């Protein structure tokens, strides 16, 4: 974490620590939707959702509640990377 602030764009990287890019969000939701569609067990209580809910809506709700155990490896152009856990990202 201390090496990050030495970088010229350290602030920029830090500002993204608590945010997901729109591409990451799309990727996560689509990956989770595929898992659910292929028979994975939802991590949220299905009773809290409406009767005819789609896999994608379940996935979106799971992401919103921040309970997905997924991490993202963000690579930088110089080869280094940053690992961000979705659970740490504030509710979107």
């Amino acid at each position, binding site marked *: 974490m201390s090496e990050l602030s030495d970088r010229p764009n350290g602030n920029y990287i830090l500002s993204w620590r608590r945010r997901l890019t729109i*591409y*990451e969000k799309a*990727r996560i939701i689509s990956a989770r939707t595929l898992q659910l569609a292929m028979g994975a067990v939802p991590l949220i209580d299905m009773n809290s959702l409406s009767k005819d809910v789609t896999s994608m809506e379940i996935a979106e709700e799971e992401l919103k509640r921040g309970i*997905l155990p*997924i991490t993202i490896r963000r690579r930088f152009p110089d080869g280094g990377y940053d690992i961000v856990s979705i659970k740490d990202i504030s509710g979107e």
Partner: protein
Amino acid sequence: MILDTDKEYLEKKLEEISSILPEGIINKLKNSISNYPAQISKEEIDKIIELTLRDYSSSLIHPGEAAGVVAAQSIGEPGTQMTLRTFHYAGVRELNVTLGLPRLIEIVDARKIPSTPMMTIYLTDEFKSDKEKALSVARKIEYTRVESVVDSTSIDINSMAVVIHLDPKMLQDKGVEVEDVTKAIKKLKLGEFEIQQGEDEFTLNIIFQNMDSVTGLFKAREKILSTKIKGLKGIRRAIVKKNGEEYVIITDGSNLDGVLGIKGVDVSRVETNNLHEVEVTLGLEAGRELIAKEIKKVLDEQGLDVDARHIELVSDIMTRTGDIRQIGRHGVTGEKTSVFARAAFEVTVKHLLDAAARGDVEEFKGVVENIIIGQPIKLGTGMVELSMKPATR
């Protein structure tokens, strides 16, 4: 408006965020807060700045965005709406400047010499309000040959002489004296010859001592006629025009190096549309600025509004490696490391054969090659690397 006591507070607050927000936005903030009809309190200033910051950061693009593709489309789509007419009166009837699609192609192809080079020369304070002085500078730089002040010529075989009859009107128009013509001809290397005045003050007899053949005489005449009297190479015409309060020189033809050395020229304001000259004389960054400016000029003239950042991306890519390269086979696209990308662009078989013979390796890092083999592209969602650790119960 704000209270005078709050002015300093506003300055301080803006100073704090000067590293986050661009200068233009900060100036706009300052102006609109200061000039707002109702009074704005300190807390409201804070709130305004906070909302601005929030709005700004949420509108920045996300890492992974395919900026190149977006820029290409943003310029290409209005390009389809450009008409193909090429000529336009640049304020002066005699000068036709290439505009529209052909000019855009010229810029992007980084052509060394544009088809209609043109310069706009501004003059120093001493010169710019005086029409005579402006005309003198224009005459100085306009490239004048002997043939443009010549009325008629003839060959005298008996005395092995070339006779030139000068046109007094043209002499005055170009600001040339007979002595200037004589001086220019004297400098030529045509063997031994002598210049005498002919029938009247405007006729010159050029008598050759050692001329053996008549063809030699004809060749000599050609050489004499195309001799430069004065002016800068490349400046075909220089016209003085009144631009508001000052006199400005518009030239057909471009010679940046030469013009910068002329007395009376305001060096800080000289404009040209010749990219290569600017790159060579003023440097690569100036060339980069000019590329963006010229592309914007083309689009604006057609009435198309394209955001500056797309155009700047193009000019940045063209100047990335240290000199201006074209977007095309001999430049940006041709220097791609991917074999498939080059083969998909032009000269397919040659690239594939050369790569096979050399044993090149295709790394599939870019967009084109991944599309060819059907893999996700490493942009946008394709750039996201996920790993999942399901909780163990």
